[in-house]
């Protein structure tokens, strides 16, 4: 390479960083101005007025909280159970069912979110008659985050040292004991991480909720009520409400802030758990 080409090549990564920084800066600037213009105590505690151009986002905050919490509560046991099913190193080494489930989970993880939305609409909203409701939305979201959860928990279970599994087998310890005493502690950080990733994914999801939990911007009275999540609110303000951009950006700022707080909390928890463990080993 000539000196010139080498200089050019060497400067490429820096240029890419510059482009990304500009793009991200413009994105965050938009959110920042939105937040600056609209953030106040009332924004978080009041109902929207003027189709969301004014007023607050309290019902959306509440709906989001309910949908996400319910989705996690539904997905967590399924994710944990299926991960335990897939983690076959405890059992004798046969099982075609596991290959089937593993493939199925991979495929489920690749389904586009709008297809989850269609499915949720067809099954929960119409066939089961739950209507546009928080329940329909969280069931749909739960199915969506299950593959993610399974993948993360399986990778956590795989960190269990072989020696502990062998020790358990040599003592004739049953699956229940091994799960409780050895596997779950080993997989705990992964489970937390998986739940957080699931939360972030659920918070961010819009397409799957458009036709399941619906648009209603009232405060939902129960899980059978329709409720508008923050992400759906952002979409609606941007596309259907002329002059709604400022509110959309303020809501987006709130949503992004929420996602970051969740991620920050999670990495803190994971760090705390793993540090507590390694301290136990060092002492």
């Amino acid at each position: 390479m000539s000196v010139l080409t080498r200089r050019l090549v060497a400067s490429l990564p820096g240029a890419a960083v510059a482009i990304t920084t500009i793009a991200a800066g413009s994105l965050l600037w938009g959110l920042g101005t939105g937040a600056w213009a609209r953030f106040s105590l009332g924004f978080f505690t009041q109902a929207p007025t003027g189709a969301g151009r004014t007023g607050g986002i309290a019902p959306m905050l509440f709906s989001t909280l309910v949908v996400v919490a319910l989705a996690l509560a539904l997905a967590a046991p399924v994710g944990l159970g299926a991960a335990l099913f897939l983690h076959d190193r405890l059992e004798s080494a046969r099982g075609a069912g596991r290959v089937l489930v593993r493939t199925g989970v991979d495929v489920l993880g690749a389904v586009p979110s709008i297809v989850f939305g269609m499915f949720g609409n067809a099954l929960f909203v119409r066939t089961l008659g739950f209507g546009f409701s928080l329940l329909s939305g969280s069931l749909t979201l739960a199915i969506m985050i299950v593959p993610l959860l399974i993948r993360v928990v399986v990778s956590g279970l795989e960190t269990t040292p072989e020696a502990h599994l062998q020790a358990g087998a040599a003592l004739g310890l049953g699956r229940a004991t091994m799960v409780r005493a050895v596997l779950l502690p080993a997989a705990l950080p992964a489970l937390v991480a998986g739940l957080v990733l699931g939360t972030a994914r659920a918070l961010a999801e819009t397409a799957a909720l458009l036709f399941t939990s619906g648009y209603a911007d009232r405060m939902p009275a129960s899980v059978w009520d329709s409720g508008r999540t923050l992400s759906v609110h952002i979409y609606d303000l941007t596309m259907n409400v002329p002059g709604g951009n400022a509110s959309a950006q303020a809501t987006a700022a709130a949503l992004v802030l929420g996602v970051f707080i969740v991620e920050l909390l999670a990495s803190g928890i994971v760090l705390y758990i793993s540090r507590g463990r390694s301290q136990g080993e060092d002492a």
Partner: protein
Amino acid sequence: MRKGARSWIWLGSMRSSRCADRLVRAFSALAALVSIAALVAIAAFVVQGALPFLLAEGGSAVVGSRWAPQAGSFGMAPLLVGSAVVSGLSVVLALPLGLLLAIFVHTRAETRGGRCARTFLVILAAVPSVVYGLWGLTAIAPLVRRLAPPGPSVLAASLCLAVMTMPTIAIMVDAAFRRLPRATVAGAAALALSPETAIWKVYVPAIRGAVAAAGIVGLARALGETMVVLMVAGNVVQFPTGPFASIRTLTANIGLEMAYAMDRHRSALFACGLLLLVAAMATAGAFARVERRVVRR
């Protein structure tokens, strides 16, 4: 050591622990069954929804070029092409950018700048897609309009998707750099290669499988993404005539019309969903193949 028969105690407690084992096993098998059932149900509902339309119109509908629900014509070719063009262009934009970012992060891994960049990527990867859509509509589309109206277009949507998928690609490529065998790194150092030569002539070729895998992941995300294209691509049903043309993708089409579609129209939308599902399966299969090759090497 205590001796003597304890067989009755053994039997008693054995039974109870067997019961707990059976419970755990039943619970995990049930959970696995639920996740498989979910997949089967999704496929079944989408196929069932699409069936009336497919039976009535046959495969010809897919290649029809006019989508006009009021007129009862449901040609999906423009939507399909729209999806392909937007997501393809986004990968073409995002892959080099992601690769370069990964190189930046990797070569400065231990410096403050590298750590900052890595954190920054993780943060960007966590931004919800609807926020990217909002940004695309308020920042990118006006920019594109200055070049050529109307603004919301193939280019705007692809740019926006590229920025959205780029962090994921960069994180995956960076992870592949970090998995490089010590021997490869030491070998490059032993030859006293300049950093640029080492990266472009040794490291990048060594991880080309992982780069391909990252590209496929980016493609899959772009293909399945609804919100960004719905907000930024313009939503006009037509074959793209250029980068500044407004188009509509399969996902956006479902997002726009699902809320009010009835009967044949609704069934046609499910057919769109089926097309998407097939496309997603194809990319997932491609990813699995590439990943298996990467792992095997």
